[in-house]
């Protein structure tokens, strides 16, 4: 008799349990969906807020080309815009070859010894150092020790230090993602390790490398903390017809101080003396945002385009 009563109650309990865990599953899925919705909403809100608030200035040519004003309304961001791109180009010119070399060494050559461990730890350390610390080191070393002052050169070297760990990691991952068979095939054909790297591995890894470099360019473009004590917080007016490389108004002079867009936003907000502070900082932020969006799209597009060319041939 005990069996007869306990069998249905067990079945009922099992059914109840099944219903409960199914409800739990649906509930969890609902919560997870809500979280993702929240993240997407925040993202859209941030990008939308910046673009909408700065829209008025974004298409204002005089804002984009004229020089900033300190105590009057109506200042522009012409020099800052140029400085940001100039610093970015210089930084990439220095950091890409060094990172490429370092990544090739770590991915292909590095012997398994103490020196390699030290080097790997050093790069990892650099990647986790706060950018303000990198900036302060730049101030100490490039600005004071080397005597280059607040200058584009000091700034781009500080940005290089900020950028190298990011680039080394991406390039190394791209190289390591190339299938082992490609290496073996190269070596079996009588190529040396170096030739295999140059002719086989680098081309195969190129799409990922280009995407990584362009994405890192976006990070460099928006970096400010590493720059306030290296490239300085002033932007002398630039004269594009001046080719005297020692003059402060020559745009190409690497020894002139150069405030970038990101530093400009920070500086005018911390000083707070510009009358049209909100309009200028929103406009600058919108310009910065558009550039970052462009870098993101370019990174994706360039990676795909190169991959298509390589595989089509």
């Amino acid at each position, binding site marked *: 008799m005990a069996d007869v009563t306990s069998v249905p109650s067990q079945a009922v309990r099992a059914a109840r349990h099944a219903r409960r865990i199914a409800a739990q599953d649906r509930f969890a899925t609902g919560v997870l969906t809500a979280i993702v919705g929240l993240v997407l909403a925040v993202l859209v809100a941030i990008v939308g807020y910046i673009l909408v608030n700065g829209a008025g200035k974004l298409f204002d040519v005089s804002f984009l080309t004229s020089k900033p004003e300190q105590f009057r309304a109506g200042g522009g961001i012409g020099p800052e815009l140029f400085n940001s791109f100039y610093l970015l180009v210089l930084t990439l010119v220095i950091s890409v070859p060094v990172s490429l070399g370092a990544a090739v060494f770590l991915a292909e050559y590095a012997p398994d010894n103490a020196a390699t461990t030290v080097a790997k730890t050093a790069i990892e350390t650099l990647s986790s150092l706060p950018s303000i610390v990198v900036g302060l080191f730049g101030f100490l070393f490039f600005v004071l020790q080397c005597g280059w002052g607040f200058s584009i050169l000091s700034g781009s070297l500080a940005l290089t230090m900020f950028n190298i760990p990011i680039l080394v990691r991406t390039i190394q991952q791209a190289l390591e993602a190339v299938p082992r068979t490609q290496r073996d095939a190269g070596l079996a054909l009588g190529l040396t390790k170096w030739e295999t790297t140059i002719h086989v591995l680098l081309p195969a890894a190129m799409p990922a490398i280009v995407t990584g470099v362009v994405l890192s360019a976006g990070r460099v473009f928006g970096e400010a903390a590493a720059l*306030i004590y290296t490239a300085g917080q002033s932007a002398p007016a630039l004269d594009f017809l001046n080719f005297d490389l020692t003059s402060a108004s020559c745009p190409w002079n690497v020894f002139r101080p150069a405030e970038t867009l990101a530093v400009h936003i920070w500086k005018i907000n911390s000083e707070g003396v510009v009358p049209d502070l909100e309009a200028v900082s929103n406009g600058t932020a919108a310009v910065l945002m558009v550039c970052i969006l462009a870098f993101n799209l370019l990174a994706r597009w360039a990676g795909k385009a190169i991959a298509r060319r390589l595989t089509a041939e």
Partner: protein
Amino acid sequence: MPKHRLERCGLTVTGACVALVTVLVVTLIVMVASHGLATFANDGIAVGDFLLGTTWNPHQADANGNPTVGALPMICGSFAVTILSTVIALPIAIGSAIFVVEVAPGFGRRVFQPLIELLVGIPSVVYGLIGLSVVVAWTRSWSGSTGYGILSASIVLAVMVLPTVTSLSIDALASVPHEYREGSYALGCTRWQTIWNVVLRSATPSLMTATILGMTRAFGESLAVQMVIGNSAQIPGSLLTPASTLTSVLTMGMGNEAMGTVYNDVLWSLALLLMAMSLVFILIIHLIGGRGAVRHG
């Protein structure tokens, strides 16, 4: 060029790149450390007074005639914003990582991950600016305070570290072997039971690494925090009173003081503290990695 020379040449050039980076990092650590230690070696300030002193006023002498350079308010501020922002960001980051790995992988790869990458790329000053005009204003509207303070800074930081932690968590969950999930489903588990009991459990070490990396970023962030925290060097009494962090004091102060003055030396000590903390964070990550490796054979 003969092959063996080409090979030697390649090895030398790439090796030199690694050596250059290593030397730069070592120089950085040595230079910041030597400047930071000058406070204690040359200016006669006791390490204990610096780390545990609660008054930060380097222009005024204390009872012993030393400048009052207690860094505890900034240390508390840094830890408070780091922990609070992590607490806010972590559930959201892991939740969305679970969603894109377990629930909707196609959506995750095509839509969510590119968008998260975009969020990583937004400059910190832009976050600071939004913090200033939206978060601070919102906090002010309901709290009756100025709106500047640890709460505002933590909210801004939470949004900033969210993409970092999310994308690392996605990697962590995606690297859990597929067989584990199949085994769990074969036992009749629901998706949530599988996620909770199998996937999250076996990804715990990597998720902890993701968290620590997010904390490293929050701890070292300077400009966005400086813009919204109010910059008052006092032990924070509540989440709504203006406070300051190691980074915010450094950002504000370094430009105003001549090299070699006591105030300047103390600022370098703060930089040293900041550097030491990020080294500690790396060490923790290595310990977690090592333990995970041991446990998984």
